C-alpha cells in the first residue's frame, strides 16, 4: 500500500521534485509528471524496468538534464539546477550508470578533476594522491591512486566514482546502479559504508535492479513505470513479489528451469594460460580448464582475480605470456577478432560502452556489426536493406529493446536497453562458444529472466557457454558446473552447482580454502 505519510506536505524533505516531465530532443517522453521526495537521512530506492526513466529523473536532480516542466525544491528552496556544478554546490553528488572517468588519467587525477589542487600551472600530483588515499581510507573504499583508469577493473572504477562524489562534499548521494559491477562481498562492503553515511545524516538515492539489495539496504522506495511514478512505499511494507509486479505489471520468475546438461565434445580448451600485467602482478597463473558443447561453465570470484584478463586473452584483446587456448582445436591466441568470430566465438563484453556498441550509430547499425558481410544481408555489392531492416526489427522485438525506431542512436537508449542490444547481437550469430561477461548487468528483472532463459536454451542446443558474473546468484543458478578464481588460479571446481552455498563459495573466493590439484584438475576433460 502507498505510504500515505510520504506525501503529506508538512514533512520536511531535503529534496522535492514535483510534477517533473522530461521530453528528450528526439521526442522520447522519459518522465511524465513524476513526484519524487527524499527525507533527510534515508536510503531511498528508485526502481523500474529498463527505460522507465530512473536515470533521467536523477540526471535532472544532478543538473545534467533540464526538466521540460515541473519544479525542484532543495531544502524547501525552489531551485534551478542548470548544471552539475550548481547541483554540487548544493551538496548533490551523482555516480552515473556509465563511468564518467577520463581513461588516460590516473585514479588520483580523476578524483580531483575540476577541483584540481594546483601547484603553479600544474596539477599537484602528490596532493591529489594524498587526497585520494585519505578518502579511500576514510570510507574504506580501496583504490590504487596511481593506476591509470584505463587499466583498472570496473569494480575499482565504480569505487573511484563514489569517492569522486564524496570528495566534492556531496550530502545527497545519487547512486545509479552502483552494484551492477560489484561482487557480493564488495556489495556487502559498500552497504556497510552506505549505512555509515546514513547515520551521519547523508541522504542516498539507490538505483538497482537487484531486489535483494533493495530489501536489505533501503528505507523507502519509489517505483517507476513508463515514465510515471507508481507510488512510494516503505520498504518493510512490501514484498519482492509485489515490487516486481508493480514494476513489470506481471509476475516474474527468476529461477530458470533447466534440464540437466548433456555435455558433448570439448569446445574451448585452455591450458597453462599465464599473464603478468605491467605492474608485475600475476593475473593468470597456469590456468587450465575446458568448456564443452552443451554446458554452461560459470566463473565465480571477486572482481580483479583474473576473470577480465582471461576473457581478454580468449578474444585477443590482450596477449598472454604463455599457454594455449583453442576453440575446436584451433588456437585463438593472437588471432584477429574477425577470425575468432568466424570460428563461432561470441563475446558479451564487460564494458559495453567501450567495445559493445558505437553510441552514435543506430540500433540497426549496431546489431549488424559482426555480420555485415553475411550473404543474406547483401545483394551483390550493395546491402540488402530490406533484410537488414527485418533482422534489426526482429532482434529489437525478440529482446524487447525499448526504442522509438531501429534508426535511434544506441547512445540514447537507457542503460539496460543498451545491454540488450549487445546481447541480441552476440546471441544471434549462431555461436559455438559464448563468452558472457556479466550478461545481465543493469538489466531489469523481466529482461534478466529472458536473457537467462535464452542462455540456457542456447546451451541446451549445443553451444558452449563460459559465464563470468559478479552476481553470485546468477553464476550458481545458471551454471552447470563452476570454477572459482582466486589470484589468477582456479581455487575450486564444482562439477555440480546444486548443493553449493554462498558461504562455501565465499571461502574459496577469498582464498581461505583451496581444493586439491586433483579435484581442480577434473575441469579438464581429456
Amino acid at each position, binding site marked *: 500500500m502507498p505510504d500515505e505519510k510520504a506525501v503529506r506536505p508538512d514533512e520536511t524533505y531535503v529534496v522535492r521534485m514535483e510534477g517533473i516531465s522530461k521530453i528528450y*530532443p528526439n521526442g522520447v517522453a522519459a518522465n511524465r509528471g513524476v513526484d519524487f521526495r527524499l527525507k533527510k537521512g534515508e536510503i531511498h530506492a528508485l526502481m523500474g524496468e529498463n527505460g522507465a526513466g530512473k536515470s533521467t529523473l536523477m540526471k535532472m536532480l544532478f543538473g545534467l538534464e533540464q526538466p521540460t516542466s515541473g519544479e525542484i525544491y532543495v531544502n524547501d528552496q525552489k531551485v534551478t539546477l542548470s548544471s552539475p556544478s550548481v547541483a554540487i554546490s548544493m551538496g548533490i553528488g551523482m555516480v552515473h550508470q556509465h563511468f564518467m572517468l577520463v581513461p588516460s588519467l590516473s585514479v588520483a587525477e580523476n578524483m580531483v578533476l575540476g577541483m584540481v589542487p594546483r601547484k603553479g600551472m600544474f596539477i599537484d600530483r602528490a596532493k591529489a594522491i594524498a587526497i585520494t588515499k585519505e578518502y579511500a581510507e576514510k570510507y574504506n573504499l580501496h583504490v590504487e591512486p596511481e593506476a591509470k583508469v584505463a587499466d583498472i577493473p570496473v569494480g575499482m572504477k565504480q569505487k573511484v566514482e563514489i569517492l569522486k562524489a564524496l570528495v566534492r562534499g556531496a550530502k545527497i548521494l545519487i547512486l545509479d546502479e552502483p552494484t551492477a559491477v560489484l561482487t557480493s562481498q564488495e556489495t556487502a562492503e559498500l552497504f556497510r559504508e552506505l549505512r555509515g553515511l546514513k547515520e551521519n545524516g547523508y541522504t542516498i538515492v539507490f538505483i538497482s535492479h537487484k531486489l535483494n539489495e533493495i530489501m536489505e539496504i533501503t528505507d523507502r522506495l519509489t517505483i517507476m513505470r513508463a515514465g510515471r511514478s507508481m507510488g512510494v512505499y516503505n520498504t518493510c511494507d512490501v514484498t519482492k513479489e509485489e515490487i516486481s509486479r508493480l514494476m513489470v505489471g506481471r509476475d516474474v520468475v527468476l529461477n530458470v528451469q533447466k534440464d540437466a546438461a548433456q555435455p558433448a565434445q570439448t569446445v574451448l580448451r585452455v591450458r597453462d594460460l599465464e599473464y603478468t600485467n605491467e605492474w608485475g602482478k600475476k593475473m593468470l597463473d597456469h590456468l587450465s580448464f575446458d568448456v564443452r558443447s552443451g554446458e554452461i561453465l560459470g566463473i565465480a570470484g571477486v572482481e580483479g582475480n583474473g576473470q577480465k584478463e582471461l576473457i581478454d586473452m580468449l578474444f585477443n584483446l590482450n596477449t598472454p605470456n604463455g599457454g594455449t587456448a583453442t576453440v575446436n582445436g584451433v588456437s585463438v591466441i593472437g588471432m584477429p577478432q574477425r577470425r575468432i568470430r568466424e570460428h563461432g566465438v561470441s563475446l558479451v563484453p564487460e564494458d559495453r560502452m567501450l567495445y559493445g556498441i*558505437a553510441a552514435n550509430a543506430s540500433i540497426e547499425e549496431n546489431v549488424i*556489426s559482426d555480420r555485415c558481410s553475411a550473404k543474406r544481408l547483401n545483394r551483390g555489392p550493395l546491402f540488402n536493406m530490406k533484410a537488414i531492416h527485418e533482422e534489426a526489427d526482429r532482434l529489437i522485438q525478440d529482446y524487447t529493446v525499448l526504442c522509438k525506431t531501429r534508426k535511434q542512436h544506441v547512445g540514447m537508449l537507457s542503460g539496460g536497453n543498451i545491454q540488450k542490444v549487445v546481447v541480441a547481437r552476440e546471441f544471434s550469430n549462431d555461436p559455438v562458444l559464448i563468452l558472457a561477461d556479466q550478461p545481465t548487468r543493469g538489466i531489469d528483472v523481466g529482461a534478466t529472466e529472458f536473457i537467462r532463459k535464452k542462455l540456457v536454451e542456447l546451451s541446451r542446443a549445443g553451444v558452449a557457454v563460459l559465464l563470468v558474473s559478479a552476481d553470485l546468484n546468477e553464476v550458481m543458478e545458471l551454471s552447470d558446473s563452476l570454477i572459482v578464481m582466486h589470484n589468477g588460479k582456479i581455487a575450486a571446481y564444482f562439477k555440480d552447482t546444486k548443493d553449493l552455498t554462498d558461504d562455501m563459495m565465499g571461502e574459496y573466493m577469498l582464498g581461505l580454502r583451496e581444493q586439491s590439484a586433483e579435484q581442480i584438475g577434473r575441469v579438464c576433460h581429456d
Partner: protein
Amino acid sequence: MTKKREIIFSLVRGLLAICIALFVAMLLIFISSEGAGFGEKLRATGAALKQLLIAPLFRTGRSGVSFDVKRLTDVLASMIPIIFTGLSVCIMFSANQFNLGAEGGIMLGAFTTAMVAIYVPMGAVIHPIVAVLAGGAAVAVLMLLPALLKTKLDVSEMVCSLMLNYIVMYVIKFLMNTYLADKTKGQIQSYEFLQSAKIAQLVDNGSKLSVGFLVALVVVVICGLFMFNTRWGYTIRMIGLNQDFSRYSGMKVAGVIVLSQVLGGFLAGMGGGIEMLGRYNTFSWSALPGYGWTGITIAILAGNNPWLVPLASFFLAYLTKGCELMATYANVPAQLLDIVQGVIFLFFAAEQFLSRYRQKLVVKSAQEELAGKEGAKHA
C-alpha cells in the same frame, strides 16, 4: 518529431544562418564602403549586396532582373573540382582519418592527368578516361604513405598529409621548371594537351561546363551508395564512430583505414584530372589551387554525407562567385568572402544554434503523440 517539422526546422535554421551572416556582411561592407555621407555609403552597400546575392545568376539592367544562363553555367562549372574534393574529404573524415591531402592530391592528379594527356597518344574517347584514372591512381598511391604510416607506426595522418601537400607542390614545380615546361612560352606551362584527351563541353559559352560535371554527379551517387548501402562504407563509418567496437566486431580496421584514405586520394586525383582536361589546354598551376581546403569546408557543411555534397558545393560556388562579382563591380575587398563564409559556417556548425526553438517543436510533437495515444486508449 515528425518529418515535416524536421524539414521546416532545417529550413528555418539554414535561412536564419544565412540572414545573420548577410547582416554581418552588410555591416562590414558598410564600414568599408567608400562614400561621403551616410546615404551614399548605404547606396554603395546596397549595390554590393546585390552583386553578392543575385548577380551570380541574374543580370540586372535597366530592363529589370533577368536570368543569365552563362552565369549559372559558370557557377556549375566551378562546382566540378570541389565536388570531388568534398567527396574525398567526406570519406576520409567518416573513417575518423583527418587526412588533409586532398589539396596536394588534386594538384598531383591534375599534373599526372596532364602528362598522360600530353605524352601518351590514344584514341579519342579512351584518352581522357585513361588520363583521369591515371591521375586518380597516382594520388591513391600517394595516400598509401600517410595511411600506412598511420596503421603501422601510428604517425598522425594529419601532419603527414599536410606536409605531403607541399612536397607534392614543390616536386611538381621543380619538374615543370627543369624538364617539362614549354620553353617557347613566356610563363611556366606545359605543352598543349593532345586533342584526343580533351573532355567535351556541355555548353559552348566559354563557361567550361564540361561533361566532367555529369561525371561528378554520377560519382556523388556512387559515393552516397557506397557509404550508406554497402558493407565497406558501413565499415568505414563504424570505424570512424568507435574503432574498438569495430575491431571487436570483427572488422578489418587497419585495412579499412588504408582503404578510406586511398579512396579519398583517388577521388581527389580524379577531380584534378577532370578539372584539367575540362577547363585548360596546358598545365600551368604553380601553386596549390585551394580546392582541397574548400573540400574540407564542404565535407563539414555536408556532415560527411556524400548526398549533401552537391548542395554544399553549389552553395560555396555561388558564394565565391558573388564575392568575385562584388569585388569587381562594387569595389569591395575580396577578403570579405572569407569573413562571410566564416560567419555562415559558424552558424551551421554550431549545433546548439536554435536548439531552444527545436526543443519547442519536439515537445509539441511528443505531446500531440501522447495525447493521440491516450485518446486512442479511451476510445
